């Protein structure tokens, strides 16, 4: 199987987010960056499929030079190759732009791919857009938010999470799958993997080489402003005997919150 897996470099989820003075972006200085959490499930699934069926896994990221670090992590986890599409623009929150770059690269370099694996949503943009957009731009089926994936030959069955249930979906390859937590348990990098990853060459393809149309080069989203949400004003804290505490909760819900 020829599998491509897409990973994004994002701020550590524990980070405190500070906004730039112009209100158009976040302050990156002092932030620790990681591979977006759901993307690790996608990498793990790619590796498991290769281990079961043979083939090759290529990890691809669109972003600044710094994203090489997360591509090295993918190599250390065991992917065969990695490619960086170099895009120096700041976070645009626009999935279409990223999807167009990915679709163009896939068409040019990987016309014979079988499966494209993504995280269900990237931390930061929290969009859940890129996978379905890539699927549409390539004209192939999509299954998002997948918790179980079975591939037999050119056919696939995936279970995707919906409200209070799972949808069992059948599809044919090539296809786009996006990973939800629960799909697998991502492995750790091995020391051997880390050493090998250090030596590996990672090709860097400038965005300009992808010959994207004007429409896809400029984001269709205009950031008016980015701000920190208003702090919630602290509530009341009580410490009472259990029975009194229970009474107070119910009284609060009825009289103050007007819920019951």
């Amino acid at each position, binding site marked *: 199987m020829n599998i491509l897996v897409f990973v994004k470099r994002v*701020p550590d*989820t*524990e980070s*405190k*987010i500070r906004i730039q003075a112009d209100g158009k972006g976040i302050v990156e200085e002092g932030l620790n960056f990681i591979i977006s959490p*759901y993307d690790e499930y996608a990498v793990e699934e790619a590796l498991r499929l290769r281990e079961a069926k043979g083939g090759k896994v290529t990890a691809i990221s669109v972003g600044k030079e710094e994203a090489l670090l997360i591509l090295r992590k993918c190599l250390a986890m065991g992917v065969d190759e990695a490619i960086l599409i170099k895009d120096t623009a700041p976070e645009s*929150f626009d*999935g*279409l732009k990223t999807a167009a770059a990915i679709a163009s690269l896939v068409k040019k370099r990987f016309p014979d791919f079988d499966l494209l694996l993504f995280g269900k949503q990237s*931390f930061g943009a*929290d*969009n*859940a*857009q890129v996978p379905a957009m890539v699927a*549409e731009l390539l004209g*192939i*089926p*999509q299954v*998002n*938010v997948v918790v179980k994936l079975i591939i037999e030959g050119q056919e696939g069955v995936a279970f995707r999470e*919906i*409200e*209070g249930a*799972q*949808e*069992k*979906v*059948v*599809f044919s390859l090539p*296809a786009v799958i996006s990973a939800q*937590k*629960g799909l697998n348990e991502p492995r750790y990098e091995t020391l051997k993997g880390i050493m090998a990853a250090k030596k590996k060459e990672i090709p860097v393809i400038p965005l300009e080489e992808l010959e994207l149309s004007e*429409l896809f080069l400029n*984001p*269709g*989203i*205009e*950031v*008016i*402003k*980015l*701000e920190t*949400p208003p702090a*919630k004003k*602290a*509530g*009341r*804290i009580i*410490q*009472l005997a*259990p*029975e009194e*505490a*229970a009474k107070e*909760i*119910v009284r609060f*819900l009825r009289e103050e*919150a007007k*819920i*019951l």
Partner: protein
Amino acid sequence: MILVFMEKREGKIKKSSLEALAEASRRAEELGQEAAAVVMASELGDESSLKAQGARKIYWLKGEIFDSYSPEIYAHNLSELIKELKPEAVFFAATAMGRDLSPRLAAKLCVSLASDCTQIMVFDGALVFVRPVYAGKALLTLKLKTKPVMATLRPNIFPLREIKQEELPSAIEIIEKEISGAYSGAAARVVEIVKEEGAELDVTEAEVVISGGRGMKAAENFNLLRELSALIPRSAVGASRAAVDSGWIGHQHQVGQTGKTVCPNLYLAFGISGSIQHLAGMSSSKVIVAINKDPEAPIFKVADLGVVGDLFQIIPHLKEELKKALAE
């Protein structure tokens, strides 16, 4: 026109789609336009609720093919309708289906998409959207430069309209559309919906979420929360990641950054410390009540009512008090 996609599950139109329609009709009024609904199904069903939420027209893409979901087939047919109607904007509820279908459709129409919006305004005749980013640690206000403007609306945020019967326009136009040529590409198809036992309501759709964390200590103690849930209408049981990772309850119940984002009217947190990742999923709940034995627990920083105490001692009394209150 603002066109709103109405999601049907088990023959019923979803409440979150009605919320999106209600918001569309409010913003359409402000723009001097009208809201319209699009239903894709073999049966139209409940048109009166669409009327009550402000739809002036209903476009009904009729066909049995729509009774099971396929993103490719849905997007194909919707895009044909949109090319014909040329709406100003297209709204979806940010449900599992809405978040799957809208980016596919957006790419087909070559437009950008505002995902999971929590506020919509009109400025200088244009729609402006607000949405949480960085798991709610920042708020993004944005405008879309592409047309039609496309957005998904977070469930449980936008209020339904309460219009009196006599104020409703008498007629609502229903426009039946033949489906426009079959989709010729490869399509993914839902062949079965596997329900989780005992989970009628998803945490994202519940009006009250009753969550437990590591403080619940064991899987069977989640029954205490299920018993509370049985008393409270439209409630569901949630959990922290610590509880899910301990195997006490399924992942679909997890609230937080790697779980679900909820904004119920009431969030009850039992034995949850309030890590930043957990808060990411629930801090926009309308009212938060936390029960924790540690007075320093960070969850108290976002709680409207914080109760310092042992949850195992409080829950039995709470059950009794709730029964009394709800019986009145």
